[in-house]
């Protein structure tokens, strides 16, 4: 049974902060098929299209029939832990400071043998289920979990290296004015975050939900205006060193396209709040997060981008909105590369229209802010990198995978 995590003590200010390290993240191009699956929390291996052999390690040629048609497919993740060892001596600096480290050989029911990290509740000879996780390098690794959930299993130190569980972490919700920001504050409080900083711009502008927000125990309202570089910088200077997760809830949803729009004011606001706001956050908080990637139990762990799924393909009804979201998506890819040395997970959470006022005229299905917030928390608990929440997001993603051009035409009609 996993020892439950204890609330970390206040940091000793005389103690040096441990610098973040990563395991080797180099992978073959094919092996990044696992990374793609891990990013979304799926367990997928190559399955030969011709002879159905399930393949591991990733190959470019089927070891059973030499076919080169080897797509990644979801596979039943169950198997037996045949043998285990505890690595005491490692050549890698990351593992050296984390040994003893258990690894084992899992014989998957589906066929192949997988060397995997072991959750503390797995036992040699017992059945296990494998999960693909992103390690601190951002590449995929297999981790064997106990067949059935065990008490406090999320607190396993090996597993916590590959997740960013909000429990005992300190979170910044960048904009608490919106229903999404408020739902997020509640979800993180429910998930055991020790402090939930909630940013509010223009505090002289009243807004609904403020009183409820104040009643959430770990919530601390802080001044934060993403359109104001100085405000973002000041917040980072003040609280950055005790913020482990940043969730950017700033939004600017307006209907209307590019051609049929009068002037730039709205577009500029969208870019200012969404894209430039993200850049301001990245510049102010990114370096601090990156430096604190190995700072004990509540090490910095994630930067969460909430993105319209139409960042992936423009929805002309909300055309300039989609374009601003696309800019944020692109920035997120850059941030991933830049924050990787700290092991910071830049998690992109894609959603369709929300049950909020700015999507008032959009027909259902629409996503409740609370559902979005729960998905964010779950994604962090599972260590995901790309999360698609709700029917519309899933639908757009599926259609995009099949035929992007068809999706472009469909969204235009």
């Amino acid at each position, binding site marked *: 049974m996993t020892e439950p995590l204890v609330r970390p003590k206040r940091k000793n200010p005389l103690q040096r902060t441990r610098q973040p390290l990563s395991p080797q993240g180099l992978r073959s191009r094919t092996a990044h098929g696992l990374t793609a699956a891990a990013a979304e929390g799926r367990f997928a291996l190559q399955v030969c299209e011709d002879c159905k052999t399930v393949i591991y390690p990733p190959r470019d040629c089927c070891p059973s029939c030499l076919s080169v048609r080897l797509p990644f497919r979801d596979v039943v993740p169950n198997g037996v832990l045949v043998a285990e060892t505890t690595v005491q001596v490692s050549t890698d600096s990351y593992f050296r400071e984390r040994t003893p480290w258990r690894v084992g050989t899992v014989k998957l029911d589906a066929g192949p043998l997988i060397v995997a990290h072991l959750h503390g509740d797995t036992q040699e000879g017992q059945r296990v289920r494998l999960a693909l996780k992103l390690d601190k390098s951002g590449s995929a690794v297999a981790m064997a979990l106990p067949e059935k959930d065990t008490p406090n299993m999320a607190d396993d130190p090996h597993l916590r290296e590959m997740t960013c569980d909000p429990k005992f972490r300190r979170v910044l919700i960048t904009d608490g004015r919106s229903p999404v920001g408020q739902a997020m504050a509640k979800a993180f409080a429910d998930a055991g975050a020790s402090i939930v900083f909630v940013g509010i711009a223009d505090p002289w502008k009243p807004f609904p939900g403020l009183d409820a927000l104040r009643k959430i125990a770990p919530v601390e309202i802080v001044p934060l205006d993403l359109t104001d570089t100085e405000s973002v910088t000041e917040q980072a200077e003040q609280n950055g060193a005790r913020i482990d997760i940043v969730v950017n809830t700033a939004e600017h949803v307006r209907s209307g396209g590019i051609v049929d729009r009068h002037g730039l*004011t709205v577009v500029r606001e969208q870019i200012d709040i969404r894209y430039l706001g993200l850049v301001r956050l990245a510049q102010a908080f990114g370096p601090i997060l990156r430096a604190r990637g190995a700072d004990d139990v509540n090490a910095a762990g994630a930067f969460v981008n909430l993105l319209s799924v139409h960042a992936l393909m423009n929805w002309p009804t909300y055309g300039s909105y989609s374009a601003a979201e696309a800019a944020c998506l692109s920035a997120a890819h850059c941030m991933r590369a830049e924050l990787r040395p700290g092991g910071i997970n830049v998690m992109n959470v894609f959603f369709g229209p929300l049950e909020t006022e700015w999507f008032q005229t959009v027909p259902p299905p629409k996503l409740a802010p609370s559902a979005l917030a729960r998905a964010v928390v779950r994604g962090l608990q599972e260590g995901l990198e790309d999360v698609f929440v709700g029917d519309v997001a899933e639908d757009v993603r599926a259609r995009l995978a099949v035929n992007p051009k068809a999706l472009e035409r469909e969204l235009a009609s």
Partner: protein
Amino acid sequence: MTVDALSFARAIAAGQIRVVDLTQTLSQDFPTIVLPPEFGQCAPFRIEEISRYDERGPAWYWNNISLGEHTGTHFDAPIHWISGKDLPNNAADTIDVTKFIAPAVVIDCSKECAADPDFALTIPFVEAWEARHGKIEPGHWVLLRSDWSKQDFTKYANLRDDGAHTPGPEPAVVKWFVEERDVHGFGTETIGTDLGQGHHFNPPFPAHFYMHGKGRFGLQCLTNLDLLPAKGAVIIAAPLKIKQGSGSPLRVLALVS
């Protein structure tokens, strides 16, 4: 009377004429007017460092700023309002520059405003003021002292779910100022020259409607009006020369002898 510009400068240097700054500091958190979100919005003041003696510019410090024409302490030109759109010389760049220096009267409503944030200035109130201070002469700014500039930003904007609640003039007194007193313009300490609830008047926003309709000017977000005499101050309020500008942030100075 011989007017000597040099003597004027000497009087200022010698402190015989006081200069009072009526301007709020341009800062990011100073409230701007809030319109319903589906309308276009006035940009708040923003400042981005270009360099500060660093790799972006080793020996110099400077900033790029962005803001709306109606951000911070600002001047409203007649072209700002639909009622003044067709007047000659109605924009920031075309207004006769002599209009940028004019005397002012200050009507102290601070007690009334403290008691009622929706305080509306009326003709009888002004007539009572004139009974004490004399008639308002033509060509004067009328400045409404509410001490609103001394509030914190939340009370300053004073937004409730039915909108802002800040003092201003009722329609009749504005019309009267223009038609009966031939005033130069109207100035306030609040975010607008009109009441926060001024859109419920007929016409809505009467200070804008009547003043600009007759080619008069507006000043808002003023401060330090409590340092001015009821009569006798001269206002220097020269907006930036923005091409077809509807107004402009500016430094407003009062000269008091």
